[in-house]
């Protein structure tokens, strides 16, 4: 049997003719071919309703494609049994527009959650959580509750939680959607730094002004199709 795992993976993410049709008949994505190289940072843009969120949801296995293949890290995730989905998600960092923090837990506990889920030793948890909080500049806020933080700070907690496991792939859905331009630029700089460390990122955003200054690939979606003009 060929050793697939031994094969050097140059593409961390590959979509082949991926479509998503909802039971209502609405076609959210139509035959998308897309790939993201290992260590690449790319922006997914398009108007709202263009299918950006749907695409990320398919990759995060929050939804299943109607057709086509999604290969992450050399593995066809369409064939993943339901029981393996949590372990798959543990290996990618997901950042949401609505940060989804646990409101009754401290910043520290929120960031620690992915490690606790994976059964890390408390000693290692502490080190990693502080490193992640340091990266996003919130080291002095670890005891606070999410409600005590500003929107930008909450988003950075969400980012710390996504990177605390040191994933090779990060998916972000409108991570700056609720932030003012300056905070948004901060977040993007943070993403660039992760990328410099070798992390692959796919970031959905409709904020064209923000990303034109960054010299990264842009993937344009329009009406569920790739817009080759971009």
């Amino acid at each position, binding site marked *: 049997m060929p050793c697939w795992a031994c094969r050097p993976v140059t593409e961390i993410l590959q979509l082949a003719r991926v479509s998503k049709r909802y039971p209502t008949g609405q076609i959210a994505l139509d035959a998308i071919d897309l790939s993201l190289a290992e260590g690449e940072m790319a922006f997914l843009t398009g108007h709202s309703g263009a299918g950006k969120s749907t695409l990320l949801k398919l990759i995060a296995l*929050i939804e299943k494609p109607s057709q086509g293949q999604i290969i992450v890290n050399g593995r066809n995730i369409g064939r993943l049994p339901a029981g393996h989905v949590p*372990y798959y998600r543990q290996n990618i960092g997901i950042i949401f527009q609505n940060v989804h923090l646990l409101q009754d837990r401290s910043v520290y506990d929120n960031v620690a959650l992915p490690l606790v*889920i994976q059964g890390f*030793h*408390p000693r290692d*948890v502490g080190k990693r959580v502080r490193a992640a909080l340091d990266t996003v500049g919130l080291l002095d806020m670890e005891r606070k509750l999410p409600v005590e933080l500003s929107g930008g700070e909450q988003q950075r907690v969400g980012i710390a939680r996504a990177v605390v496991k040191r994933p090779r792939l990060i998916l972000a859905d409108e991570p700056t959607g609720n932030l003012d331009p300056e905070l948004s630029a901060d977040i993007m700089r943070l993403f660039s730094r992760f990328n410099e460390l070798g992390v692959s990122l796919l970031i959905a955003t409709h904020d064209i002004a923000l990303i034109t200054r960054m010299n990264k690939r842009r993937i344009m979606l329009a009406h569920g199709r790739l817009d080759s003009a971009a």
Partner: protein
Amino acid sequence: MNGSPGLSLQAWAQAHLDVARDSLRRLRSNGLGSLLTVLMMGCALALPASLWVLTENATVATRSVEQQFSVSLYLADDVSDTRGRQLLGELVTDPLIQRGDYLSREDALAEFRDYSGFGRALDLLQDNPLPAVLVLWPAPGTSSAALQDWLQRQEQRAEISLAQADADWLARLQALLAFGIELVHIMGALLALTVVLVVANTIRLQIASRREEILVMKLIGAPDGFIQRPFLYSGTLYGLLSGLVACLSVLLILDLLQPHISALSASYGSAYVLRGMSLREAAWLTGSAAALGWLGAFHSVWRHLRDIEPD
């Protein structure tokens, strides 16, 4: 699961400890609601548990009554003393019979003279009208049906003119006891189901109120086992506490009943003290309650957690 370097048994134990502590904290923070739930479950369990303790007491009491209870085999007039004693020797080897006495015709007359108060009148009789008797004590736990059957067989013997046991009242007592035990089983089953349903409903509400949290957990890759854990701990904790409430209630109920039992047994010339629950029985009750709590929580978790999926 990928083998991350931080995984260890200690971390696993720590995680469970944290969840248990968190469940306790949530239970406490929900103060009155939790208290009412636990009391409701505890009372539900106290009813069959105290009935059970009472039937256990009744069983013990019945045993002691059975031990005083004897049957009489009246011998035919032509049976000699020697043959009578020989017959006793044979009958006491029967597994149904614990021990026996032989009362010769003379002994019977002497006993009758002592107890009846007809002493003088008896002297007027030329012959001793009383037969010799074998007084036999059945082995403890012998059912009255088996005993009746055995007596009928003995009556077939030529040497025995009459086999008599006033066993009707014993049969009634045993039937009543069997009824009581069955009642305990039925009520126990129904109220155990009640406990399971109460916990299931409580946990269902907990799941509903923590829906957001469960969604977040699923999004960041928490396996079902991890998400279930706090709810299962919570259900088990409810069960455990209600078991303790039930134990205390049983003690209280027995304490309330003791004066009445004392009065009743005094009227029969004995001083019966109610046997309470042993530590082992209390542990069994509490453990069963915890298991029922877990079962209720598991049912809810199984039914409702899979409905919460990110979309």
